[in-house]
């Protein structure tokens, strides 16, 4: 395994989950693209692990250099995670239930009532409804809650 192949494998093993974990930080404050990126990346990484394990174990013999199987060992973890994240960012949408996802990050000292997600769920939902109701007049996506 060359240095480049080893590097790609390491990126897939550690870089991709680290990036997903970083994106998941303060997930409730992410916009629709951030949420889509996370879920797409997570799905891609899950599929990547399945492909990776299959490429490693089938058949249980050493792989040859410059083969499709070696590509299956080196690439799928990082490649499918990135592909999934990109796809998720493109098709990401506002969640159908719960408070509407903000369009950008909510800063701590901005005075925005949406900041802080550690309260009871009922209070957060009530706050989300209040925010959504106040913005319904110029909301392009339509009503947030049924």
């Amino acid at each position, binding site marked *: 395994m060359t240095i480049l192949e*080893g590097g790609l*494998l390491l990126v897939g093993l550690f870089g991709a*989950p680290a990036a997903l*974990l970083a994106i998941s930080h303060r997930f409730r404050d992410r916009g629709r693209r951030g949420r889509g990126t996370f879920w797409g990346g997570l799905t891609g990484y899950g599929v990547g*692990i399945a492909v990776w*394990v299959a490429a*490693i*174990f089938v058949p*249980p*013999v050493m792989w040859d250099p410059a083969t499709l199987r070696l590509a299956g060992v080196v690439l799928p973890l990082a490649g499918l995670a990135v592909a999934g994240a990109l796809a998720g960012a493109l098709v990401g949408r506002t969640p159908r239930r719960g408070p509407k996802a903000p369009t950008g990050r909510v800063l701590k000292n901005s005075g925005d009532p949406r900041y802080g997600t550690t309260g009871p769920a009922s209070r957060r939902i009530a706050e989300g409804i209040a925010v959504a109701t106040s913005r319904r007049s110029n909301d392009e996506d339509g009503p947030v809650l049924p």
Partner: protein
Amino acid sequence: MFHTHLWIGVLSAALVIVVSVTGILLNHKRTFGLMPDVAGVEAGLEGALPLADVVRAAEGAVGNAVAAGGVDRIDVRPDDGLAKVRFADRLVTEATVALRTGEVLHVGERNDVFLEKLHSGEIFGDRWTLLSDALAVGLLILLLSGTWMWLYPKARM
């Protein structure tokens, strides 16, 4: 503590899967047919052929392409009356030879060797065993941090 547990858990997930699968397969390698299971012949070293003759018989059985890679190791089993000659080819071919007669009892791949190297990380390169070490240390930290959070659930550091 919580974030340590979280980050180590997420980062080690893929490797834990591989190490777990290889561990299970290695535990049941005979069941899954990952190594040949040859019945023993007449036991004892008395009247056994010289190792050179055993290797010659094995090389004749595996063919020139495999034999060209050379012999990796010879596993002599006096209690079974046989020797396993393992070749250093990519497929890890092994010939089982009767010690007294030189008869080749079986020729096949040793897939468990690949799994052992994968289990230790050696399959990716010599230094990749450090990754396996790091994973072991990470699992110990997970054990400690998980216990800590179980004992002190409100101390979410």
